[in-house]
């Protein structure tokens, strides 16, 4: 059983929902990332999605675009991101880490080399935004062979046939993108998400995490009620941007954001 599967199973057993924060590695500075990851865990994170910065983040809105630019300004490379995970693992070998990014940096490293390095660093899952399962026939076996979970996206536009096919290629969880748009844009329509996620649950046994548009305790609870976990990104990254000058205040601000979400999610259990 993968670390991701283990955590999600345990949560399910307790009737709890996963809180999955996203931050971009290297933002605001590569030296801070590991610290911020521990902060996220202390504030209640069950799984961390760690963004690999890319020069052309086509699926992201301005907030994460700017995070990528900040990280790249400090030369944050995929190699360094892996080193950050390795350092994180020195103090935390329980919290799963999913690398989320775009295909080209992984290809540039070489897929096999990347897969080896990811396992060595203690990475648990890979989510490649611009890699649909149709194009993953070369890398998927590399991940499977190393017990790395391949996490794919589902969208409001995904047809039933594709939901089935994508789920078959996925392990760990599937990531449902709650609205049509880039990260940090639009408003989440909770009723629509509820009916779509219920439908996805009919088509796959995998846990369903929902991301895009979750920004506070209320949206976290509303989405947590109908899914297995919530992914929180742009609101955290925006907080990083606003507090980048003061690391201590930044950590407090991140905790202050996550804590109420954790509580709201856990209040669903009782």
């Amino acid at each position: 059983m993968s670390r991701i599967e283990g955590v999600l199973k345990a949560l399910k057993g307790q009737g709890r929902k996963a809180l999955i924060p996203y931050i971009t590695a290297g933002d605001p500075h590569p030296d801070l990332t590991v610290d911020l990851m521990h902060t996220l865990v202390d504030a209640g994170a069950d799984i961390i999605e760690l963004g690999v910065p890319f020069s052309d983040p086509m699926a992201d809105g301005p907030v994460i675009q700017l995070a990528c630019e900040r990280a790249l300004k400090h030369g944050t490379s995929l190699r360094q991101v892996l080193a950050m995970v390795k350092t994180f693992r020195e103090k935390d070998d329980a919290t799963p880490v999913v690398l989320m990014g775009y295909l080209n940096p992984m290809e540039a490293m070489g897929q096999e080399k990347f897969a080896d390095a990811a396992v060595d660093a203690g990475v648990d899952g890979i989510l490649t935004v611009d890699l649909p399962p149709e194009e993953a026939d070369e890398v998927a076996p590399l991940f499977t062979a190393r017990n790395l979970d391949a996490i794919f996206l589902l969208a409001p536009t995904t047809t039933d046939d594709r939901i089935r096919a994508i789920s078959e290629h996925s392990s760990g969880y599937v990531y449902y993108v709650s609205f049509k748009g880039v990260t940090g844009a639009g408003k989440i329509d909770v009723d629509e998400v509820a009916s779509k996620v219920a439908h996805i649950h009919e088509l796959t046994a995998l846990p369903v995490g929902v991301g895009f548009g979750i920004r506070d305790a209320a949206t976290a609870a509303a989405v947590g009620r109908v899914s297995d976990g919530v992914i929180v990104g742009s609101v955290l990254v925006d907080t990083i941007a606003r507090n980048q000058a003061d690391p201590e205040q930044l950590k407090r601000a991140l905790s202050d954001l996550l804590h109420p979400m954790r509580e709201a999610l856990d209040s669903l259990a009782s």
Partner: protein
Amino acid sequence: MKLTEEMLKALPDARGHFGAYGGRFVSETLFDSLLTLEREYKRLKDDPEFQAEFDKDLAHYVGRPSPLYFAERLTRETGGAQIWLKREDLNHTGAHKVNNTIGQALLASFLGKKRVIAETGAGQHGVATATVCARLGLECHVFMGAEDVKRQSLNVYRMKLLGAEVHSVQSGTRTLKDAMNDAMRDWVANVDDTFYIIGTVAGPHPYPLLVRDFQSVIGRETREQCLAQAGKLPDALVACVGGGSNAIGMFYPFLTDESVEMYGVEAGGLGIDTGKHAAPLSAGRPGVLHGNRTYLMEDENGQIAATHSVSAGLDYPGVGPEHSWLKDIGRAHYVSVTDDEALDGFRKLTRVEGIMPALETAHAVAYAIKLAATMDKDKVVVINISGRGDKDIHTIAQLDGIEV
């Protein structure tokens, strides 16, 4: 490798691959739209009504066929092979781009989409898109890097006159690649009612296929005209390569004619060895950007590199996947010329033939002159004059230190 009709018919394959290149590397939200577009295009491609409409527009709105012109004086001065010019600069709106926008706008109409988006570098594709949208009454949004908005201001104003909204893109390097990023972002958010008219043979499948099909009219006409006027097939074709649409349009109908050599000319910028250029086929390596696997300019960590070219339309770090395939199998040659050589090409054609090429096109002109000089007098070189230079007058004047 000798290419046959059967081999060409099999490409791209069902997943949109040309050998190792192409594909559909997009986020999930867009996937179903791409499948629908592919399905509808395959249906309409053989629909006589759609084809008749396309041909009619090319004839009466674009003004096709464009002439194949024997550049007698340039030939004499060069002292080698005969140089012929395929005059895409004479098309309505001034470049080859309109062949494709006519086709895609027609697709948009058949699909019932009322809102159109496009990316543009030099502004030629933006103008061509704004033009067809004005004619069809479609809402039009053009994304253009802030850097290009500055250097192609004439085209920006043309687009506005035509009723398009021009979005100045401030992210990244503020050029064509960033315009394409923002167009993709808009598309994800408006996928239900929006048709994305991509301006070159890049992007996810089926775009490289359908843009190539729409642009192939260039090569088909050239083939016929050359046989009729020069009495033989060309010995060499020369076209500039940004994303590669005018080049593939010229090359494609000749791919099985083994005697025809093909040269795609990339932007060498300040020189390939300076790193300041836009020549992924000459100096890049395969990677994935904007929905397809292809040759790219990138750093050792897989970050897309900043490009440089005097011409906005060639200032792009990627290239259409079919060109990557043609390079690997050796069917086409990919070369580069520098900014300075291109500017010389611009001046030469202007002064010797009275034809002012776009700065993009000037790259092809510069290389073709060098090439023709090494060839016998009975050989025929055809340059694809992909566009006219009116839009570049400000840039040229600025380089000359003149205010216009």
